């Protein structure tokens, strides 16, 4: 019987919290997904793992910005996330640049998002105008 993805994510997430060798863990997961023909589920599986880890105090956020962020802003984002999620033990940030955002930042979490980009604001403005008819 096919193991539910969420159960799989919990097992892997628990392993990431205790496993000493990340490479060996990655190889095991890859082998399992190939053997079960479930490689297409990798993306949502990783999100499930991130979500589980977030619920256990380890936040990994992807921060997208138009330009490289100064350390001060990065620290502010870390503080904001720590405030938003009580019991946070660690906040890790992966930065990525996307010129289409024009300015500001978008913080991606597994199931949540903080869109404070210029593009996001313009989109919201556009949606408001469309809703007004």
């Amino acid at each position: 019987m096919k193991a539910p993805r969420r159960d799989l994510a919990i097992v892997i997430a628990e392993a990431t919290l205790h496993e000493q060798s990340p490479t060996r863990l990655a190889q095991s997961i890859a082998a399992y997904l190939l053997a079960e023909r479930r490689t297409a589920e990798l993306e949502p599986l990783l999100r499930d793992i991130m979500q589980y880890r977030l619920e256990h105090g380890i936040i990994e956020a992807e921060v997208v910005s138009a330009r490289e962020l100064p350390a001060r802003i990065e620290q502010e984002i870390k503080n904001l996330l720590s405030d938003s999620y009580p019991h946070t033990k660690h906040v890790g940030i992966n930065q990525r640049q996307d010129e289409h955002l024009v300015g500001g930042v978008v913080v991606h979490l597994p199931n949540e998002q903080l869109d404070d980009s210029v593009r996001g604001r313009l989109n919201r403005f556009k949606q408001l105008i469309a809703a007004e008819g």
Partner: protein
Amino acid sequence: MATDASIEELSKDIRSAIAKLKERPEIEEVGVVTRVGDGVAWIYGLTRCGFSEMLEIETVEGDLIPAFAFNLGEDEIGAVLLGDDLAIKAGATARLTGKVLEVPVGPELVGRVVNPLGQALDGRGAIKAKTTSRVERNAPGVLDRQSVKEPLMTGLTAIDAMVPIGRGQRELIIGDRQTGKTAIALDTMINQHRQGTGVINIYVAIGQKLSKVARLVDRLKREGVMDQTIVVATSAADAASLQYLAPYAATAMGEYFRDNKQHALIIYDDLTKHAAAYRQMSLLLRRPPGREAYPGDVFYLHSRLLERASKMNDELGGGSLTALPIIETQAGDISAYIPTNVISITDGQIFVETNLFYQGIRPAISVGLSVSRVGSSAQTKAVKSVAKSLRIDLAQFRELAAFSQFSTDLDPETRQRIERGQRITELLKQPQYTPRATWEMYASLLAATSGCFDAASIDKIKLAEANLLRELKHDHPKEVAAINKGDEPNDKVKEMIKKMATKIAQSYKPEEKQTEPSNTTGAKA
């Protein structure tokens, strides 16, 4: 916090906290579209999503496409899109709205053509409705209702006399394609206007050809009926989701009038296409197919819709919502899956037959298969008094007519019965867009069933009828107005009509060569 000063401080703190919170960017729950196509999007995340909750999916251009959650799986959500699926790419962001689908309702919609989301399709600007209502609502409970007691006149003699419809009833119109199902519905709408009943019409086109809808709207405008009509239109080119939503949205619009002490009539044209749209959605969402590939809850699909048609009790205003669902059969097969479902849900059915239609008997109502389970208690006394024996007379006529095909030698009584049956059949023919008033039905049926028209030739009986109605209207306007109120006229008035009909019939006597009993072709009525 024992002193006044501390309250002041607290107030300051609250205000500054509010200001800070307002400045603080908001983290919102989002999902990610993993797959999209055929009007369905599969979404990862949004674990707090409720069933039928509205979602918004952001397109590449930053626009929002509405969708509603239809499948809540362990790993993903299946959402049905209410817009263009080509605008959405895998990886798009989906957000919860915390709302279920609502549509604008109220008098602002009357006279308009809208889509199932309540957006105008008639190019007359946005609809500025003050209120909205949920598309999916529970039907009124037992205590909120009362029995059907007021008539909803269709203006078609055959229906009002033999299968009467009451306000709050659900009467199915069923038959093959091109047999006049929509024509019956349209005439009923026109009659509401001609008789000044004040009933609001709601016509729901489900997956229809837009040219047909345009023709219908044009006709309604020409007849002046559009001023009391809402048209909810979806075409065959619209997404299955919109076709699925159309009857529910239209019912929400009708419920507004029902709940505000008014009367509304809703026509679902047709529920066969609605079931097909739901089947398409269900199969795309990978729900297990059942009989004829319909999902298991296809009965509930229509039962929960039609239960919303009701007559409310007097404490709740006594408003009503009458439903005329339409079902298209294949080769007259009323025992197919969807027809039997809807027959069992409704309070009766009007069965229209292809054979009758092509014999020129229009409306092509099959008397034997048509029935109204609750309407007779709502029938006007005037029509009831003359329609009592109509079904039996026609049934006997059919039997005798079929039997007489094998014998040319008929006794006078049988011949008389057959001829009367033929006359009644002729009188029940009615051209489209000519719904009749109660007094017209009464006078015509009284003359026919009491034998006053027996002297008139069958092919001239419509002329005799027209003459009778013209003279009655001209010479006895007071009596006509009294009958039109629905009460059974007294014996004096009855005798007057009979005398007049007998006299008129004499002027339409058959010629000598036509005295032989005519062929029984078209005898089935």
